[in-house]
């Protein structure tokens, strides 16, 4: 039983400076607890993407500490980070990133490709995940036969097939019409209700405001509403 007060993401005075001296994040501290449904919202250039990369352990901070599922990201090797991602984090991208001409069951099952599970188990879990997102009847369709919203649901199934502790969605509705977008948000809400920690990164204030907690980003800082 996971303690609901247990933190999934802990950032402590995190800065990220890119080569050339561009500071994308400055002194950001935040904690996301298990079971939360959080929006990280801000205009482009506010540091959202850097937040995604750091929370997703795709990058390391320049200063400060990032702890994901109780692992200090700075102290982990590239290999260990890969293992952490495969076991604890599910990603959803704006562009879906599905393999063309590959049946959606395999697309979803490939989310577990690096988990060490046998193919049969991967496909079994992918089948369950696809049923969860309402695509149980289309397992053998190929991505180009699906609508944009359905494709994003396949990507969600791929991300949650391994029951990650943290689901990271980067502009999940960015490429979708409003109806499909609403369906995707509804699905994320369901996953949250099922106990998954969900972090949505978006520039869309409306979407952000529909979530229980918003973290507003501006110029690489968390915007507290008080001028810095």
């Amino acid at each position, binding site marked *: 039983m996971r303690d609901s007060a247990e933190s999934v993401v802990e950032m402590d005075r995190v800065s990220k400076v890119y080569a050339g001296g561009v500071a994308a994040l400055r002194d950001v501290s935040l904690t996301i607890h298990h079971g939360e449904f959080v929006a990280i919202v801000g205009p482009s250039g506010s540091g959202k*993407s850097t937040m995604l*990369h750091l929370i*997703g352990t*795709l*990058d390391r901070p320049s200063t400060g500490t990032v702890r994901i599922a*109780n*692992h200090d990201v700075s102290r*982990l090797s*590239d*290999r*260990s*980070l*890969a*293992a*952490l*991602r*495969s*076991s604890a*984090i599910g*990603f959803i*991208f704006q*562009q879906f*990133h599905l*393999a*063309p*001409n*590959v049946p959606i069951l395999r697309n979803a099952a*490939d*989310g577990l*490709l*690096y*988990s*060490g599970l*046998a*193919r049969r188990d991967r496909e079994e879990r992918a089948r369950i995940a696809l049923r969860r997102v309402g695509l149980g009847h289309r397992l053998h369709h190929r991505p180009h036969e699906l609508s944009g919203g359905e494709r994003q649901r396949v990507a969600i199934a*791929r991300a949650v097939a391994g029951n990650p502790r943290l689901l990271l969605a980067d502009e999940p509705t960015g490429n979708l019409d409003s109806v499909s977008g609403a369906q995707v948000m509804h699905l994320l809400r369901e996953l949250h209700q099922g106990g998954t920690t969900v972090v949505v990164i978006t520039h869309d204030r409306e979407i952000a405001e529909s979530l229980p907690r918003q973290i507003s980003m501006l110029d690489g800082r968390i915007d507290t509403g008080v001028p810095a």
Partner: protein
Amino acid sequence: MTVQLRPAGLRLSDMARVAVTGMRARPLRAFLSALGVALGIAAMVAVMGVSASSRAEIDRTLQLLGTNLLTVGPGQNLTGKRAELPMKATAMVRRIGPVTAAAATGAVTAKVYRTDRVPTALSGGIAVLAADLNLPATVGGQVHAGDWLNPAAARLPTAVLGSAAARRLGLERAGNRIWLGQRWFSVTGILAPVPLAPELDSAVLIGWDAARDIGFDGHPTTLYCRSEESQVEAVRSVLAGTANPAAPNEVLVSRPSDALAAQRATDQAFSGLLVGIGAVALLVGGIGVANTMVVGVLERRAEIGLRRSMGATRGHIRIQFLSESLLLSLFGGAAGAALGWLLTVAYAFSRDWPPVVPTWALLSAVAGTGLVGVVAGLYPAVRASRLSPTEALTAP
């Protein structure tokens, strides 16, 4: 609750599936780059196959003709004149223990024409030879048309034509007459080409007695002898002294099968050159594969980013591109080996050779393409694995 974070290994079957999927995503490009490798391999396998088949054919011929034929020819004497053998040379040679058969031909100075109307200058370079009756049996000659000389015919003006001589005289069947040494000879037969004694092909052969009638002195000039296979070298060492005891240095002893065997060696040198050309083709094919992989890495940055986000390590990415390159190359290699094999069989069939494709050629083709695939894939794979996940994901 810190747990050990150790990435899982990728199963071989999964590795293969990922590689095949990557290849199938761009089938035309995969086909074209595999084609380059296939052509190189096909060229190499075909060259090795054809030369192996031709060697097999020579071996088969040697087997058929035997390597135990020795030829005693006239050398030159000290004054530079063409030497001839003593009258009794054939009989003497027959007396050598391991010799199983001996037959002689003697050069007749007469000229031969299709008819008596042909100008004397147009003799066509056809030799006239007096021949022992057991000559075809000794040299392994076959009668192509008509009959060989018999004891009765050998005294009469009858002739048997070598294959080239018959062609030059324009005769395809026995039964015609030819104008030989100022008289008519009837043609009783035509020989098939004699591989071990090609000098007979361009000769007209007549009986010993018939030859005397047109001024032949009776001295044999060339002597053919068969001996027991194991004793050939021993016979060879005494042959000169036996055939011409008075002047053994004036005779030339040779083993015609050696010439055929030598042909085999030149054949090998030639095929070495062609294999070199095939290797260049293979190299170019390998560069094609490398090029495909480099372009693939550039195009598939988003896929690499996705895989990294799903937990792929650098090693996973590296092995993915390496195995894809290996697979691409191996497909090309397998297709090339099959094509080379087909070419060899077709060519051998057209030449009536036994088709032989050496197993080592096929195995080295597969090993070669494997090597090409790995080498070609190494750089792109390392490049793909060095791509940082964030860079890969932000690629357009």
